[in-house]
């Protein structure tokens, strides 16, 4: 693989409701931030990937809203619909193809503007499943139960993820929900759909994010040292929930395998210094530890018990606070990647993991983490 690296990043503050801001307002903010961060101007950008979702935005061709704001006039541009990390991966491919020297990737979502359960119900098959009324929470509860019962993972272990990530968010000025909570608070929080409680679930969030990819030559022009793409992979599981073994994530195993192979990683727990994973629900983080090979199958609960993924653990996970602390759905994966970049740069402030060389970012698409993207960036 040729070299492609991130030279600029930008995020909005993640908030429950940005009532005065439109999608282009947010995208302009993060585009300018990413350009400033890179020390580049819009003229240095030779193609753009926007990422958005037509359901969340209530607009077919939702990308149309942000064409002016992402500075794409007179440039090649395309649009990925899905999690921002998948969009970032496609943005990197376009540089690797040799056609472009830089790609700006932008993503936006205002979850406050629509109804989460109606939007996520539309993920389900209109012929066989949708009329049942499943949404992101009830479907996740099906998976949580399957996973927890299969491996004996407890609600308290899941609660520890929430405590960890909300606590870590206190050091991230962009996070929406920095919280000082204990396991008991999570256990006593309002039950949404057992085993999922309010503090096991990520919030409704508005926000946007941007990154700039550059090839080796273009990166020289940027003021920040590039954080290189070391490896990436993506993969999807079967669609119907009943076709899947919901307790396991073979698609994540496959995506990680590809990313590790490209990055030359054989023991992720040792070789990855920090990981930002998609903790849309607290149980997911534990499941993804397993899929990412941080521990053996069923070992996620023990991993959190042992504190291995806390800030002082062997592999800190979600120093940003994760999706539990801000989840502008499409933005989530790119927010994970941006945190990974900041960690590698040593710019993560009070949440900095010392001596971070390789960082992992992870994003998901579809019901119950059906599709995964894993990316490893480093010095």
């Amino acid at each position: 693989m040729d070299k492609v690296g991130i030279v600029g990043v930008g995020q909005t503050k993640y908030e429950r409701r940005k009532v005065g801001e439109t999608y282009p307002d947010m995208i302009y903010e993060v585009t300018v931030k990413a350009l400033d961060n890179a020390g580049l101007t819009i003229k240095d950008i030779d193609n753009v990937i926007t990422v958005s979702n037509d359901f969340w935005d209530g607009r077919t061709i939702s990308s149309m809203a942000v064409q002016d704001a992402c500075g794409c006039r007179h440039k090649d541009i395309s649009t990925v619909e899905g999690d921002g990390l998948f969009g970032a991966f496609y943005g990197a491919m376009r540089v690797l193809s040799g056609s472009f020297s830089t790609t700006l990737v932008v993503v936006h979502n205002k979850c406050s503007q629509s109804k989460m359960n109606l939007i996520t119900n539309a993920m389900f098959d209109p012929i066989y499943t949708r009329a049942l009324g499943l949404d992101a929470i009830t479907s996740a509860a099906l998976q949580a139960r399957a996973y927890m019962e299969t491996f004996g993972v407890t609600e308290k272990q899941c609660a520890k993820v929430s405590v960890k990530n909300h606590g870590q968010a206190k050091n991230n000025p962009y996070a929406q929900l920095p919280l000082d909570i204990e396991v008991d608070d999570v256990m006593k929080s309002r039950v949404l759909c057992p085993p999922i409680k309010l503090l096991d679930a990520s919030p409704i969030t508005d926000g946007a994010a941007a990154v700039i990819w550059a090839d080796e030559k273009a990166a020289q022009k940027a003021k920040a040292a590039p954080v290189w793409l070391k490896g990436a992979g993506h993969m999807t599981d079967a669609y119907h929930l009943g076709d899947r073994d919901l307790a396991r994530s073979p698609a994540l195993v496959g995506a990680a395998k590809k990313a590790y192979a490209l990055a030359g990683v054989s023991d992720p727990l040792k070789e990855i210094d920090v990981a930002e994973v998609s903790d849309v629900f607290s149980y997911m983080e534990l499941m993804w530890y397993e899929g990412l090979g941080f521990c053996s199958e069923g070992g996620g609960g023990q991993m959190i018990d042992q504190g291995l993924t806390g800030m002082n653990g062997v592999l800190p996970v979600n120093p940003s606070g994760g999706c539990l602390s801000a989840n502008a759905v499409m933005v989530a994966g790119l927010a994970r990647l941006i945190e990974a970049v900041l960690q590698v740069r040593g710019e993560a402030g009070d949440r900095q993991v010392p001596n971070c060389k390789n960082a992992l970012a992870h994003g998901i698409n579809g019901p119950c983490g059906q599709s995964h993207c894993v990316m490893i960036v480093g010095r």
Partner: protein
Amino acid sequence: MAEWEQATEDIVYRGRIKVPYQWWVGETGSHFFIKLRDEKKLLGRYCARCNLVFMPPRQACPRCFNKEMAWRELKDEGTLVSFAVPAYTSELHPLEPPFAYGIIKLDGADTGLTHLVAGFKEGRLKTGLRVKAVFKEDRTGDIMDIRYFQPV
């Protein structure tokens, strides 16, 4: 922010997307729903190459693309693989509480059908429970011709 911006109220426009959809079920699915509607029978599709019976039915095997799949009649009883009892109300919920979402592996099938579970006492659902389909009286040829599954 310019002065006029600070002084301007934030207008929020309330609208909707209400496009009517009709999703064609296709020949395979239509056969399945007609059997369900007319005979209260549940049919899966068998791939001999993968030796798997899929439920809901597929025209071709989603694993190996085999198009020569066969119909297999399944029992209207099965095992609860997982379940979820929502503790919140939603306009989407088709039943009054208590009800559950369930993944049900029908006897004779290798994959689970996601559907509703009802007719249970609160707190009494368990994975592994045996459940049986309760059919609607006036069936119209769609997945809701099964009202729900209830514990045997």
